[in-house]
């Protein structure tokens, strides 16, 4: 277990130069205290976003990716939420230490966020022009008229035809793709340095998704906004991002560049996730399946979160938590890639382990070779 504030885990690159980073998240733990106990929704997450770059946060529902974003935006109700530990630095300023007033100035101005469901994030009783102008007037000292002009301008930027007419429309008069454009326009109206997009295309059709992704890319190129893209779609990740953070059960299990993570996944979860996507030339063959389900958030496994479902697990996995190490080591939270305490495994054994597990997975029989001490985690 690590508790000390760590230097940043940088995936195989030059030494961390803090000035490069727009946003740094260090060992963030967001817990929810609810009636049935405590949910560690975010449990020690660290990553960094460089200026103008795109980072992808990937994971399935309940892995903590949205809570991470909401914590950064400080949009969570405290209580029931509690930020147990961690630092969020935006341009070197500690976001968690800001007063509510300072935070309001930061939110929208410097960091903006767009949400998954474009219908529920717009107010149905105001015109879209009003809503964008409201956001503008909150952050910039401009007149009503100037704010509306800015709203029209930002709608034009997101490729909406005849924005003068559109600003007078209500959200229900627009299609899903159009509403998502409005959300993006609103988020961009104050020229933020960081845009957090939480599943921006999940509710949209593929052809509309292609339009929105194209749009986000173009705007990024024009404005130099950094993007934190939260998604479960590895296709979107491959398309859009430079760096990837893979989350599982509230923890970062692997991070690296998009090529590293998607082409040579190291963590068994990433590997399983990629293999369970039906792809070309796989017709009729059985899909790889990650066995079991995501662990109960009230009762996370003691060691590695993924151990109960992992085909490669061995002695240290159920007992000891493999965190991504600070300052060096491969950025993957898996005992296969590091030395376990009291279970230091030499390279040879590591290779054997992986090979045996791969064979076992391929022949669809349980890996029995090296899992002597594993017990099913209680549901």
């Amino acid at each position, binding site marked *: 277990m690590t508790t000390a504030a760590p230097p940043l885990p940088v995936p195989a690159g030059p030494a961390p130069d803090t000035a490069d980073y727009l946003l740094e998240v260090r060992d963030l733990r967001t817990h929810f205290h609810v009636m049935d106990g405590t949910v560690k929704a975010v449990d020690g997450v660290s990553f960094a976003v460089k200026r103008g770059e795109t980072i992808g946060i990937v994971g399935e529902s309940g892995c903590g990716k949205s809570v991470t974003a909401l914590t950064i935006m400080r949009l969570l109700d405290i209580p029931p939420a509690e930020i147990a530990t961690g630092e969020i630095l935006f341009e070197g300023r500690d976001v968690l230490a800001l007063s509510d007033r300072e935070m309001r100035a930061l939110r929208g101005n410097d960091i903006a966020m767009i949400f998954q469901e474009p219908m529920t994030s717009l107010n149905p009783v105001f015109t879209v022009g009003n809503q964008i102008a409201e956001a503008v007037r909150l952050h910039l000292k401009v007149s009503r008229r100037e704010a509306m002009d800015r709203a029209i301008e930002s709608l034009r930027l997101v490729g909406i035809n005849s924005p003068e007419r559109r600003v007078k429309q209500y959200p229900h008069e627009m299609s899903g793709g159009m509403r998502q454009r409005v959300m993006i326009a609103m988020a961009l109206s104050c020229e933020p340095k960081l845009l957090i997009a939480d599943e921006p295309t999940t509710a949209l059709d593929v*052809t509309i998704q292609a339009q929105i992704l194209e749009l986000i890319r173009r705007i990024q190129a024009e404005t130099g906004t950094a993007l934190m893209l939260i998604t479960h779609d590895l296709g979107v990740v491959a398309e859009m991002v430079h760096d990837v953070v893979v989350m599982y059960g509230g923890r970062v299990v692997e991070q690296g560049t998009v090529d590293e993570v998607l082409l040579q996944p190291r963590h068994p979860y990433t590997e399983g996730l990629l293999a369970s996507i039906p792809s070309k030339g796989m017709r009729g063959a059985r*899909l790889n399946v990650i066995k079991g*389900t995501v662990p109960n958030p009230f009762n996370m496994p003691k060691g590695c979160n993924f151990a109960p479902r992992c085909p490669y697990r061995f002695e240290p996995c159920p007992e000891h938590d493999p965190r991504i190490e600070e300052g060096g080591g491969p950025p993957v939270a898996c005992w296969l890639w590091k030395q376990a305490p009291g279970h230091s495994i030499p390279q040879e054994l590591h290779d054997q382990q992986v090979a045996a597990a791969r064979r076992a997975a391929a022949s669809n029989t349980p890996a029995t070779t090296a899992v002597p001490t594993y017990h099913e985690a209680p549901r």
Partner: protein
Amino acid sequence: MSTQPRGGWTNGRPLVEVKNLVKYYPIQSGILRRKVGDVRAVDNVSFDIQHGEILGLVGESGCGKSTLGRTLIRLLPPTAGEAYLGGVDIFAQKGGALKRMRRKMQIIFQDPVASLNPRMPVSDIIGEGLVAQADKTNHWDKGDVREKRVGEYLEIVGLRRDYARRYPHEFSGGQRQRIGIARALALSPEFVVCDEPVSALDVSIQSQILNLLIDLREEFGLTYLFIAHNLSVVQYLSDRVAVMYLGKVVELAPVEQLYADPRHPYTVALLSAVPEPDPRLRKKRIVLRGDVPSPANPPSGCRFRTRCWLFEQLGRPENCVEEEPPLRELGHGQAAACHWAEKINPQAIGRAANQDTTRTGADADDDDGAGVMPVATEPESINAEGAAPRA
């Protein structure tokens, strides 16, 4: 029950035959609820599904794919057309005969949360259909018989027997979808409409459910109409694929043929829009302009022409505007509804995709989407894409 093996559709009459199926929803207006128009959700659709075949049905939201599935099994009344299941006219059945027919055609719904009654234990959710379909031979109205069957089917879909006493909220999304599948299969159907069964699930759970659907097809000799908007899922599962756009089937082909050599510009664009989870495959894509027009007021001629890249590339030929293209046979079991299907080739597709990158940015302002074609916006497409006529 049909137990013909996969590929056995070459002989005999197909299990499901659909001829000129039409489903309109009336648009009503005013206090008198006068009918002022129709939403043409499904407009003159014909296809067959052979015994043991999986027909994939893809299209964007609002193209009528779910309406088609539901009309086919008489959850919605058809407006016109014919449909046969095993040679029996589905739309002509009434009363007891219809009820007996319902046992043969079942549906698995998309949303595993909304499709299970939260106040019923699983035993009642699965047992409800059994009670309704009980007769002198199956004795499903008897508690112990029913309980046994519910238990069997829970095990078949990979759940424990004792889950029958639990309520839906106690299950995860994937488990709920399994319950939905058990409910459909408990009646021993021949034909199952799978209406986006994996769309609401996470990737790792999605693959479990897809594997289950394939196993069940083999085990029970089922025939599926598999409705989805995810093209890779459809490709993985289907034998043949029908692509729908605005209530019409625009292309119908064996799966390999469709993905290797699409013959309708919409299919081409749809395939090009799917992001692949491989950063090496970042590709130039054909991005369609605007949104799907309103099905209450579809464009004249070919319904896809307002967003069609080929229409623009060929200099807006007149027959696209004036004549509705029929679904024509093109060989290899492939059919497409495009006047210019023969003009689609890799060069044309490449040109359309390249045009995209050149125009991104500069002239995006006077366009109504991040689309491909630098053309003046047509009045029709403006109308269709935003201000669809409403009641």
